[in-house]
């Protein structure tokens, strides 16, 4: 990472901390006195300040970075297999619109129907576990230095996509991992993140990205939430399609606001009476869930206790979620909730990563950007069916968390 970028990071961090400290100066129920307090202008003033701080914090609290948002290099640089560390085929079902800029492939606008694609991504030999080495603006397309998309294929119908997918699933032994990204995530961010997870975890099955239409802007929190809500039926369709392939087992890894889409979809599958995809649903990993705790409980009540407990990864130093909590009325989100036993009673396994180091100051992506964590999760996902090993690996993740 260039030195200049890093120093910029530090400044942003200081600002975030300052913003959080400032917001701490106001009592928890900062507008509770509306209409009753004698001094209306004071309460408006406090509200203004809070909103300003929130806005400021949102400006700098992106879950994703500020790269070019181009998935394909403008020039494809040929590379021989020996020059790269890995080449991964990522299958994609997306509710994003096709971008007018062919290098971006899909953008942040919503499509009325699902679009299907496959993108091949190469991982550079200099890759460090937990990192995504991204090309920044002005740098050359160098697959020996950066994650690079080497090929993008669109499928114009679902049967064509399903048949390509099926061939890949057969070739890889019948396992599928569906990744559902979070808020403020461009198509490129999601493709690279899934590639990194697959690469670092040594996942042997077929990776499928479900990409909903995040605007990829920090100020688009509500737009993103609406896009996520609009994508529920499409995620259900995607999961059902996968269940109809030769896949033996479908694991789901969801992050941040992606856990909201995932829980909604599992909930409605449960309402249809097929909550485990005819027995094919494997692990459900919910990392840093950006879901209101009460909403999550209502979703779990409707789903019922899972046969295989969902795995919740949370961290009470998650700064991105602290912000969501702040704008949601100072209520905890699942991903920074401190009462693990309360959640566990709904049939989930809670893994507290508070003591694990994150790669950035937000601590919102530890599951993937902490090198040990992503490997542990990989190990967990590689374990084949069977409940005997369940406790084992979760215990090991816990031990790591306790170190």
């Amino acid at each position, binding site marked *: 990472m260039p030195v*200049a*970028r890093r120093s*910029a990071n530090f*400044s*942003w961090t200081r600002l975030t901390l300052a913003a959080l400290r400032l917001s701490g100066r106001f009592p928890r129920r900062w*507008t509770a006195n*509306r*209409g*009753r307090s004698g001094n209306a202008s004071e309460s*408006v003033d406090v*509200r*203004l300040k*809070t*909103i*300003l701080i929130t*806005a400021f914090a949102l*400006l*700098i609290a992106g879950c994703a970075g*500020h790269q070019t948002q181009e998935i394909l290099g403008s020039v494809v640089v040929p590379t021989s297999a020996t020059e790269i560390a890995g080449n991964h085929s990522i299958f994609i079902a997306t509710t994003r619109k096709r971008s007018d800029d062919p290098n971006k492939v899909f953008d942040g606008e*919503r499509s*009325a129907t699902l679009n299907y694609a496959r993108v091949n991504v190469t991982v550079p030999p200099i890759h460090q576990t937990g990192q995504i080495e991204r090309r*920044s*603006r002005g740098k050359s397309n160098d697959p020996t230095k950066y994650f690079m998309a080497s090929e993008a294929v669109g499928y114009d119908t679902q049967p064509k996509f399903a048949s390509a997918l099926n061939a890949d699933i057969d070739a890889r032994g019948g396992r599928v991992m569906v990744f559902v990204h979070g808020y403020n995530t461009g198509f490129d961010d999601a493709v690279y993140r899934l590639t990194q997870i697959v690469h670092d975890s040594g996942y042997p099955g077929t990776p499928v990205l479900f990409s909903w239409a995040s*605007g990829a802007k920090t*100020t*688009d929190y*509500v*737009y993103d*939430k*609406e*896009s996520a*809500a*609009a994508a*529920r*039926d499409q995620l259900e369709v995607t999961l059902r399609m996968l269940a109809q392939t030769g896949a033996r087992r479908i694991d789901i890894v969801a992050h941040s606001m992606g856990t909201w889409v995932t829980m909604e979809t599992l909930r*409605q599958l449960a*309402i*249809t009476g097929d909550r485990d995809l005819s027995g094919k649903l494997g692990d459900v990993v919910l990392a840093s869930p950006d879901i*209101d705790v*009460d*909403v999550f*409980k*209502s979703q779990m*009540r*409707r789903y019922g206790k899972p046969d295989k407990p969902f795995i919740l990864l949370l961290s009470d130093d998650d700064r991105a979620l602290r912000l969501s909590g702040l*704008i*949601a*009325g100072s*209520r905890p989100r699942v991903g920074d909730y401190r009462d693990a036993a309360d959640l566990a009673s709904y049939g989930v396994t809670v893994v507290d990563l508070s003591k694990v180091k994150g790669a950035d100051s937000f601590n919102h992506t530890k599951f993937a950007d902490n090198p040990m964590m992503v490997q542990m999760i990989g190990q967990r996902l590689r374990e084949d069916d069977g409940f005997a090993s369940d406790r084992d690996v979760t215990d090991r993740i816990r031990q790591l968390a306790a170190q």
Partner: protein
Amino acid sequence: MERFAALGGPRVIVRVEIVLGLAIALAVSGCAGQNAHDLLNRKTITAPASDIAARHEIFVATTRQQATKDPRQVFDGDRSLTTLYARVDVTVPKIHQVGAIERAKGSADANPAKQFTATDVVHYGDAQQFAKAVGADISMRGDRALVFVHGFNNGFDDGIFRITQIAHDTKYPGTPVLFSWASSAKATGYIYDKDSSTAARDDLEATLRMLAKTRVKSIDIIAHSMGTWLTMEALRQLAITGDRDLNGKLGYVILASPDIDVDVFKKQMIRYGKPDKPFAILLSGDDRALKLSSLISGDKPRVGDYGNAADLANYGVTVVDLTQAKGGDGLNHAKFADNPILVQLLGNRLRTPAGLASDEPDPAQLNNIGQGLGKAVGSVAEVVITTPFKVLTIATGG
């Protein structure tokens, strides 16, 4: 340094300005009034019976917590894990003006001779007791129930008084049932409210199913603002269970000023399927509250201020465009209830049970009613109705 260059300077200033604008707008744009949200009086105030126009019994299913800190609020903005049940009796004063809610100022006691007054609250211990009481009332009043689902930034009191005003001004012949979800009743509580309404979906579904098990023949729903999101979610999941019309008992579904993203609404309608009886969407191009929702959700239109009625009608809804009609306040977010002509037109429609009403509003009849009412109130406006089949223009007044 790239990130500095990209984020520093004018862009930050522009954003800060937007945020400032938002903050000011939020500060002034409550859907509900600036009351203290006290529902009950400190001490009983009596008024001569001749000063009271009517007394309404409002049945309540709520996901709010019982208010312990401010018992006068009865239920507050915190969320309950289970549905709680109650009945609130409200009197309407003789001096009441159609479309208005005459309320006591601040936390003052209400005078029944001048203001809407909650005179009694009954709490039911469980769903069975409530079902029995509401069932008895439904049988007594002629087998119809009206469920009202309030919007964003509403206290428990706001919902109670609004449904009372609607029941009173529309002369609704059945049992009024308020479904009150845990809105924080704060203009800044937008996302808290959205989460509260989402957490209440299963409770609303259970309440509708409970009503359907009584001897009710027709369950009408009026939802307002963010309450339309909750209502559409409950109807959507009823559809997923295969019982989208409550065993044929679902009557009118009226979605007023829907605070739902247009794309999300379309997806909900696709999952629901075209209703047998088109849902009615009441919208207004000058809805200031929804302008704000649009702004914070990335400049995307909300259903309640969407300009393309025909696009919505494709999904099996009837769109009633109230842009030309006057609202009771500067927000134009509750015209359906606070415009005296509109609320009476609504009443004319509601008093015929949905099962007996034709899908196609009769323009001549509506015109007569509208003009009659308009003469009485002295205002002129045009209401444009777009059905899945055609477009009607109704003159109200003149």
